[in-house]
């Protein structure tokens, strides 16, 4: 069962480029990032592990509080730990800047 989760955060910064990090593999996740214009970050998570909505919200909330960037992000998750997700988000951002 794939669970789909959506989140939105206010954004004041922008990025230049698209980014694609991570891989589709067990315990890992893939992140596709593209710049958005409307002062808002929107994220769609498709995860193979359901029931971790609160953790996703905490990871993403913390990331966008520290990095309020206007982006559209798609995450395909295959049981990545919060550590892997945070690292992939930071890597995507480093590559997009």
């Amino acid at each position: 069962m794939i669970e789909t989760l959506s989140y939105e955060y206010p954004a004041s910064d922008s990025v230049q480029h698209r980014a694609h990090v991570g891989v589709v593999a067990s315990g890992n996740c893939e992140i596709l990032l593209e710049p958005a214009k409307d002062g808002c970050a929107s994220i769609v998570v498709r995860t193979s592990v359901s029931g971790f909505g609160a953790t996703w919200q905490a990871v993403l909330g913390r990331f966008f509080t520290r990095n309020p960037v206007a982006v559209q992000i798609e995450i395909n998750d295959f049981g990545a730990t919060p550590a892997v997700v945070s690292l992939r988000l930071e890597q995507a951002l480093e590559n997009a800047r």
Partner: protein
Amino acid sequence: MNPAWNTRRRRKNERLARVSRLVRDGRFEARDAVAVLEELIEPGDRLCLEGNNQKQADFLSRALAAVNPERIHDLHLLISVIGRPEHIALFERGIASQVDFSYSGPQSLRLAQQVADGRVRVGAIHTYLELFARYFVDLTPNIALVAADEADADGNLYTGPNTEETPTIAEATAFRDGIVIAQVNRVVDRCTRVDIPGDWVDLVVVADRPYEIEPLFTRDPELIGDVQILMAMLVLRGIYERHRVQSLNHGIGFDTAAIELILPTYGERLGLRGDVCTHWVLNPHPTLIPAIESGWVRSVHCYGGELGMERYVAARPDVFFTGRDGSLRSNRAFCQAAGLYATDLFIGSTLQIDRDANSSTATLGRIAGFGGAPNLGSDPRGRRHSSTAWLEMTSSDEEIRRGRKIVVQLVETFQESGVPTFVERLDAVELGRSAGFPIAPVMIYGDDVTHVVTEEGIAYLYRARDIDERRAALASIAGVTKIGLGADERRTQALRQAGIVAFPEDLGVRRSEANRTLLAARSVRDLVEWSGGLYDPPKRFRSW
């Protein structure tokens, strides 16, 4: 009054006389093993069984588990690692009813059940060094069952790369008139090298098959992920480079294997070769091969051997401790003492950390123990030599001051199963209570921990001014665990300013670099290549 001062010796001789019909030239046949043990051992004896996390006296432990419990019962078992099914069978059958040990990894669940059922009473869970020490004080064995590679006609023993704790057990037993029985893989005219002198050994038996040995320290680089590489980069920059750590011990695990594997790449680029990580207290980890081959490592002393590393070690005698025969001489007691007193740093992983940085690998329903970690991961108050790294842990400039060992806990904020590593309360507390232990089985006490590293950054706990600041520093790198979510963002910023917390960007660590291309070897096959074909990995690690 005419007190006898040699009762132990007399009883030993009486016991040995009982088996004389089964013994010729100090040796008995494998088929007589159960009969010999039944004649020699008496109910209530303290019996030391060589079972450590690598080498196992498994022929003798199988024989012991087969004795008649009506004759031999209520033994007090002394064993560093409860690792084999028949160790538990000793309790199930009533052969042993009390145990003092260090670690029980593979049998931790069954051990907890035996304790709950009241079949065995745990004296204490010790560190290795602590258990060995008690062999010389109040837990001296009456009987020791040990394992070796070779014996000669005089009972001299050769233990090859896996000397481990055999000399320690034999010494404690032999010199207080206990009986030392050795199982050997073969009898030879002349031992390849004498590791245990023959006059410490009473009886020898050629086992039905070579003793069991586990490749416990082999970590396949295939399984190292980017998060572990990120944490390895943080450790190298934020701890090894900053404090100039030269002598150290690495725990067993993929996190520390990642550090070993980025020394020749990332570490080289930082220009650290020769300045850090030169002297090691460590088993022959295959993942250390690239660093050794690149000239990082001056010396390695080992607790035990590692399957497949024999030829490589023998070919690097400038680095490893080796005998005249060329093979590794390991010694768990000396190596633990070295790790306690002579290293500047210990780094290892754990399953749970509480807000005060107490850590434990105990989980409910399992009595696992902790092996050497509590010694390695503690500050030895008796240390009297100084080093740059040791002195860096103190801010005092008073006339009389002492440094401190660097003790690092290296963890991801969550385990792979989604279970948080940072917890309000260690499972060890409840486990200790339910098992009736007087103290909770804490692996490393928080006040010994100087640094905690997660994927979020480093908490320099030794720099915190009080308990409140210490907790705040830990929370700021605890991610989205309940403890981490309690961190105040502004306070975290202040702690970063004060150098009590460092995020990757504060240390110049780029997350986009944290990937597998940084590993000097990405597979076991790469390790074999680095070794010039000298490393011969066990079959289960060969994918080619």
